C-alpha cells in the first residue's frame, strides 16, 4: 500500500445520520469476486433513478463533487453490515477520508485496512463542515490533525498501529505473518 501523509481536498457533505453500508453499496452488488470497480455503484439507490439515470440533486452527481476526496457524514457512519465492499466502493469513487462524529467499528477497521481514513471529530467541527460543504480541508496523518480553511486545527485519533502502517506503507498481514513463532507456541501450549 502507498504511504499516506498529508492531503488536501474539498469536502462532499451527506448530513444523514446512521448511513449504513447497505446504502453505501447495496447487497445486490456483492456478488462480485474482485475489489475493483465498485465506485460506479457507490450509494446506488440514492444516486440513480429506477431507469439508471443519475438523480441530479444527489450530492455525488453534482459537478462540485468531482475530484472531492473527503466525505463528511452524520453520526454513526458505516453502521450495519461488515461488507468491506463499502470502503472499496468509496475508495474506487475517489474518497480518501470519511469525517463524522462517530464511525461504526467494523467499517472503521475495514477502512483503515484499505487506506481510507476514518476521522472522528467533535460536534462543533462536524456542524461547521456540514454548514460549509465544499470547504477545502487538509488532513495530516502524521500529526493527526484536520485543518479547516478557517485555519482551525482539529486533532483526531487513529489507532497507533494502523497509523504507523498507513504512514509507512506497512502491510498488517506481513506483520501478523512475522508472529508465526508466537502463534506456534500458543497453539502448542493449548493442544
Amino acid at each position, binding site marked *: 500500500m502507498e504511504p499516506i501523509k498529508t492531503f488536501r481536498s474539498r469536502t462532499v457533505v451527506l*448530513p*444523514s*445520520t*446512521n448511513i*449504513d453500508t*447497505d*446504502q453505501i453499496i*447495496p*447487497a*445486490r452488488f*456483492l*456478488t*462480485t*469476486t*474482485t*475489489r475493483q470497480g465498485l465506485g460506479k455503484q457507490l450509494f446506488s*439507490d440514492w444516486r440513480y433513478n*429506477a431507469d439508471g439515470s443519475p438523480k441530479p440533486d444527489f450530492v455525488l452527481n453534482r459537478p462540485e463533487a468531482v475530484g472531492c476526496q473527503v466525505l463528511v457524514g*452524520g*453520526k*454513526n457512519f458505516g*453502521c*450495519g*453490515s*461488515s*461488507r*468491506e465492499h463499502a*470502503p472499496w466502493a468509496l475508495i474506487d469513487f475517489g474518497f480518501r477520508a470519511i469525517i463524522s462524529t*462517530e464511525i*461504526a*467499528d*467494523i467499517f472503521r*477497521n*475495514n477502512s483503515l*485496512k*484499505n487506506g481510507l481514513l476514518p476521522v472522528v471529530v467533535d460536534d462543533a467541527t462536524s456542524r461547521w463542515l456540514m454548514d460549509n460543504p465544499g470547504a477545502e480541508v487538509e488532513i495530516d496523518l502524521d500529526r493527526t490533525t484536520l485543518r479547516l480553511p478557517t485555519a482551525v486545527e482539529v486533532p483526531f485519533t487513529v*489507532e*497507533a*498501529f494502523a497509523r*504507523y502502517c498507513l504512514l509507512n506503507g506497512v502491510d*498488517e*498481514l506481513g*506483520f*501478523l*505473518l512475522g*508472529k*508465526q513463532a*508466537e*502463534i506456534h507456541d*500458543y*497453539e502448542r501450549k*493449548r493442544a
Partner: protein
Amino acid sequence: MPKTMFEKVWEQHEVVPETADTPAVLFIDLHLIHEVTSPQAFAMLKERGLKVRRPDLTLATMDHSTPTKTEQVFGGAPITIEAAAKQIQRLEQNCAEFGVELLGLQNSLRGIVHIIGAELGITQPGGTVVCGDSHTSTHGAFGTLAFGIGTTEVAHVLATQCLLQRKPQTFAINVAGTLHAGVTAKDLVLAIIGKIGVSGGTGHVLEYRGDAIRALDMDQRMTVCNMSIEAGARAGMIAPDETTYAYLQDKPRVPQGEQWERALERWKKLPTEAGARFDREIAMDASVLEPMITYGTNPGMVMPITGSIPNRKDDPVFDKALAYMGLEAGAPLQDRPVNVVFLGSCTNARLSDLRSAAAVLRGRKIAKGVRMLVVPGSQEVKRAAEAEGLDRVFIDAGADWRESGCSMCIGMNGDLVGRGEYSVSTSNRNFEGRQGIGARTLLASPLTAAASAVRGRVTDPREFLTG
C-alpha cells in the same frame, strides 16, 4: 480483581498482548466463511502464495446468495442470478484448492452460517468465533466471543488463525423480570436497541445478564445476541449455564466422553465474577415490555406495537426515514395493510421460531393479497420442521416453504420485496432497500409476523393467544 466473562475469554486468546503501539494478536478458535465475503480474501492468499494455516478450525458454507427454490437447489434448475452462481462456484473452487471443509449447496448440514455453528456444536463457550458477517455476534449466546470482520481480516485469519485487535470495552445489559406471553426474545432485543440506540454499543462488547436472560432458551439467546450489532456493539455475550450445556450435549461436533467433562469444567469458570466492573451498565425490566415493531429505516426506530410513531420536530433525517416508509408521525402502525411477510434469517429462523409462527397459523389462512415466505435457517431446521408437520401448516396457510438461506433478509438471491411494499419481517435490518429497492421493512417477532400474515395488517399477536 474480579473479571468479566469477556475479559477471561480475551485473555485466554491473547497470543501477544496489546501495547500502546500494537494491538493484541488474538487467536481464533473457529473461522466461518461464506461465498460473499471470502473470494477476495482467498485471492489475497493466492497473491502471496499463502496457505490456510488451520483448515481444521475453518468451516465454509453458502447462504447469502444461494437460491431457496427447491428446484434450483436440488433439481438442477439454473440459479436465477448468474453472478451469484459464479460466486458459489468460486467458493467451491477455493475450498477445494485450500483444503477447507465446505457444506455446499446440496449438503444436508448446510444453512445460514450463524445457525449451523450452534447446530453442529462447533460454537462453544469460551471460544473465539469470527466470520465475514456482522451477525457473527449470534454465537455469543454460548459465552463465546464472536464478531464480524471484513474481508481483509478474513484473509488474516485464513493465513495466520489470528487477528490484530484492540481490546473493546464492556457493557452490561441487566434485564430483570419475566417476558409476558406473546412477548419474545426478538421484542426484548428490539427494546434494548430502542433504549441504547443504534450506536449505543459502539466500541463495546455487551453482556446480557439478569433473570429475563437466564430464562431464555438457546434459540432465544441467539436471537438476542444476533442483534447486538444493530446496537453498534462489537459483540454480545451470555454466560453459559445448564441451558447451554443441555443444548450442546447431543450436538455432533462437541467434545466426547472425558473431554466433554473437562470442557464442562472450563466452561463453568467462564461467567463474570461477582464484583467485576463493566465500563457501562444499564438496567431494564422485561415485565413491562410489549411486542415491538420498527417503523423507520434503522432498528433503533422501534416502538411497542400498540403505540404510535413518535413525533420529532426539526429532524430532517427522521422525516426522510418516515417519507421512505410512507408513514406519518403520530400515527399508529397497527392495522396498516401488509404486502409481504418474511419468516426467516439468522435472527429468527430456528425451529422454535417456526413453531411459534406455526402455532398462530395452524388451521388458518394468510390474508388474501399477502405473500408469505418461510425460509428455515438450515437444512437441519427444515428437516426437523417437516418431521413435525410444520411445513404443512405453512403450506396449508398459503405460505411458500423454501430451502434454507439468508433469502429475503438481504435479497441477494432474488427473494425480494417490491418497491413501496410493506414487509413484516423477522430479520434484523430495516435499512432502506435492504429487502429490495424501495422495500419498506417492519421488523418484528415470528409471532407478530404470523399474526400479521393472517390478518393482512400489522397485528398484535396477543390477539391470537389462547387460554
